[in-house]
């Protein structure tokens, strides 16, 4: 299912995946348009995070297709998917998962460094994100010296610094209080719109999902569109 707007950025078609004997996805289909923000909702264990991981090329489904800008992701080898994730995708997880040995600025610069950008250029590209996300002055702090909200904003900057085509966010506000969570979502939506980045957001919180252009619900491993009338 698609919003019916622009070109499709990323798509799951009849995706099937089991963990051992336990089916997680049973023919899940979802198409997300370029620049669109889609929230995937659903009860615990419904398969919503598994679907996100399949779309992002972290997991490979046993059936169906994953397509990114028309090409098959599920047929790529591990190395090719790793390059795709590094160069074209960004990630934000529930707990920022910053590298504790690195400073905040080095954490933000990390995707660029891994992509072969020289350190000076990568750090220079990372710097404006601190002003932009209200983190000015925290550049040299390590993750243990940041509050939860600050760490998640650093993680958001890291997810967006390489201007990814798609940002995958898995419960990005799940560890934050409601006001801090709102700040993170405002920044996420504003930044994604500015960069025309497609966002696939997994959340169990309706107030977070309400920031998205469209919401779908995963139930029993399948995707249901939400139609209000």
């Amino acid at each position: 299912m698609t919003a019916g707007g622009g070109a499709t950025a990323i798509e799951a078609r009849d995706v099937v995946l089991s963990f051992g004997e336990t089916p997680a996805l049973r023919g899940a289909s979802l198409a997300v348009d370029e620049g669109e923000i889609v929230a995937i909702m659903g009860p615990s264990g419904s398969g919503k995070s598994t679907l996100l991981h399949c779309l992002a090329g972290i997991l490979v489904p046993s059936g169906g297709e994953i397509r990114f800008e028309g090409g098959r992701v599920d047929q790529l080898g591990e190395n090719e998917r790793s390059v795709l994730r590094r160069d074209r995708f960004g990630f934000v997880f529930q707990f920022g998962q910053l590298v504790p040995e690195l400073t905040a600025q080095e954490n933000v610069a990390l995707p660029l460094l891994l992509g072969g950008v020289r350190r000076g250029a990568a750090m220079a590209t990372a710097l404006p994100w601190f002003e932009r996300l209200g983190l000015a002055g925290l550049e040299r702090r390590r993750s243990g010296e940041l509050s939860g909200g600050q760490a998640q904003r650093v993680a958001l900057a890291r997810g967006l610094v390489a201007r990814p085509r798609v940002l995958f966010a898995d419960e990005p506000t799940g560890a934050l209080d409601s006001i801090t969570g709102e700040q993170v979502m405002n920044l996420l939506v504003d930044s994604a719109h500015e960069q025309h980045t497609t966002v696939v957001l997994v959340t169990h919180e309706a107030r977070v999902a309400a920031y998205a252009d469209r919401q779908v619900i995963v139930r029993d491993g399948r995707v249901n569109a939400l139609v209000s009338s």
Partner: protein
Amino acid sequence: MSVPLTLLGLLEREPSHGYDLKRDYDTFFNRGKPLPFGQVYATLGRLARDGKIVIGDVEPGVGPDRKRYVITDLGATEVDTWLTEPVEPEPNLQTVLFSKVVLALMLGRPAEEYLDTQRAAHLRRMQELTTVKRGGDLVDALLADHGLFHLEADLHWIDTTVVRLDALRTAVTA
């Protein structure tokens, strides 16, 4: 809470006397606040006047309880329309939603689909309020928050109810 529509829904289940309607209404929809008999018969009178129900077999004796009320096609259509359409999202609508869910289960209708439709209506309203909040000042944001938190509470109730639909079906159709 719509008394006429709920009584109509109970009549779609099966033709009933006024007493039976009142008993089921008090049991399932209005706990702790019984519906007065006068209101039951006044409502039934209006529904009959409007062609939504008719009086079926009249049993021997006197008094209103001798009458058995039967829903008409017009009444059944009205119940169907009411169940299918989402309720306008606003605070404190749980009682209406609850009535719809119970009646849907009693009538063998797709209660989960109705709840999905309601969830979508709620999320659409939450999107609107989030847009207001993001573009407005502090007062706008706080007013929007008031609505958002209430709508979110409704959604929690919808999610919980979906999980318990089978048990609720058993309870209300026993």
